[in-house]
């Protein structure tokens, strides 16, 4: 997947985030959001390892080994940032204090529930904060490529990979468009530039309703 596609998905997902909202960004495309110039100062970034107020990446000669995000990459702290322990950090997440979690997904079912942690064919040895965020954030936005690297639809009638939470996500932003999860079904809100409804439908194995079918 090209860096440009990732950035395009990230830029579109940023529009889903409320100004001055507290947002947790998962590993992968979500993290790209933090690097967008237009994100700077617009949202407060929470990282579950214990900081509210993640700032831009530091230059290489200014890396602080005690300052990392949940992906263990070096970060800086924004003005007004606070540090806390992992118990308070997850109290924020599970207690519904994070406005939006932006997460990746391996699969999404027709009701908007996602598989986002166990990698197919590998032993189940890592979950991190994926389930907590999916379960506890007020709103969950998924960013992903619409097709898997094998070219298969990721939005499927039933999950074949392990589910992350019984709770459905709220919005799905992919390189093909934007879907809302509303009343237990998927609703197409927007087609990405250059994507026709036909092509979107072909690339989506689960049923969905069509809300707005025009491109932006």
């Amino acid at each position, binding site marked *: 997947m090209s860096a440009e596609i990732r950035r395009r998905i990230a830029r579109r997902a940023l529009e889903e985030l409320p100004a001055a909202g507290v947002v947790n960004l998962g590993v992968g495309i979500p993290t790209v959001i933090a690097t967008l110039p237009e994100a700077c100062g617009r949202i407060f970034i929470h*990282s*579950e*390892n*214990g*900081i509210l107020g993640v700032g831009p990446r530091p230059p290489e000669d200014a890396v*602080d*080994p*005690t*300052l*990392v*995000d*949940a992906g*263990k990459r070096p970060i800086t*702290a924004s003005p007004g940032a606070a*540090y*806390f*322990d*992992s*118990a308070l*950090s*997850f*109290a924020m*997440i*599970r207690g519904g204090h994070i406005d939006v979690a932006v997460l990746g997904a391996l699969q999404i079912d027709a009701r908007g529930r996602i598989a986002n942690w*166990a*990698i197919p064919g*590998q*032993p*189940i*040895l*890592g*979950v*991190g*904060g*994926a*389930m*907590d965020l999916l*379960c*506890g954030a007020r709103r969950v936005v998924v960013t992903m490529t619409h097709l898997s690297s094998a070219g298969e639809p990721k939005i499927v009638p039933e999950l074949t990979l*392990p*589910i*992350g*939470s*019984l709770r459905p996500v709220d919005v799905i932003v992919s390189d093909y468009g934007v879907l809302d999860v509303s009343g237990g079904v998927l609703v197409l809100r927007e087609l990405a530039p250059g994507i026709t409804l036909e092509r979107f439908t072909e690339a989506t194995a689960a049923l969905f309703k069509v809300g707005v079918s025009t491109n932006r």
Partner: protein
Amino acid sequence: MLGADAAMQLVQTGATIMVGGFGLVGAPLALLEALGRSGASELTVISNNLGEPGQGLGALLRQGRIARAIGSYFTTNPEVISAHEAGTLEVTLLPQGTMTEAIRAGGAGIPAFFTPTGAGTALAQGKETRRFGERLCVLEQALYADVALIKAHVADRLGNLVYEKTARNFNPVMATAAACVIVEVDRIVDVAELDPEAIVTPHVFVDVLVERAA
């Protein structure tokens, strides 16, 4: 105050230990090196990860000293996967928030709690569930260890602790949840040099301080 090697004599073979840190950040690396030099084995380790290959807890794993690991994210160290597949390492996976809450509960005298995280997933298999309002929740048990090895930034001579940035992570909760709490610190200062409003771990939780060699 003890040296790292003397302090690690407090960890016995077969012990359950908690180890602070998120990956290597905020991990008590000098204590772990000393633990590597000690004879303790068959350890049960409660820690978010098992370090990186050959580093931190990863070094102890490579030495075959860890029999069981309880944590949330082991896939960054491929040697965990191979040890698990070889059957030499038993792994219990918890959602990260459940793990830290279970440690806090252990330290706070709460034997068990319900949480919505993980309900209906593979990680709730075999666990008691109950519905609260509309949400299905899982009953999770507290975690408690024989020894906690943690890393703080500065301690005063009583054992009051402050941490540094995101190196704080699991260290303060682990400081509450073990019979013996051993702290690696960058610096020890005199009593009353730390701001009483900014102390994160009061000295009641701390048993042994080990100052990192300068």
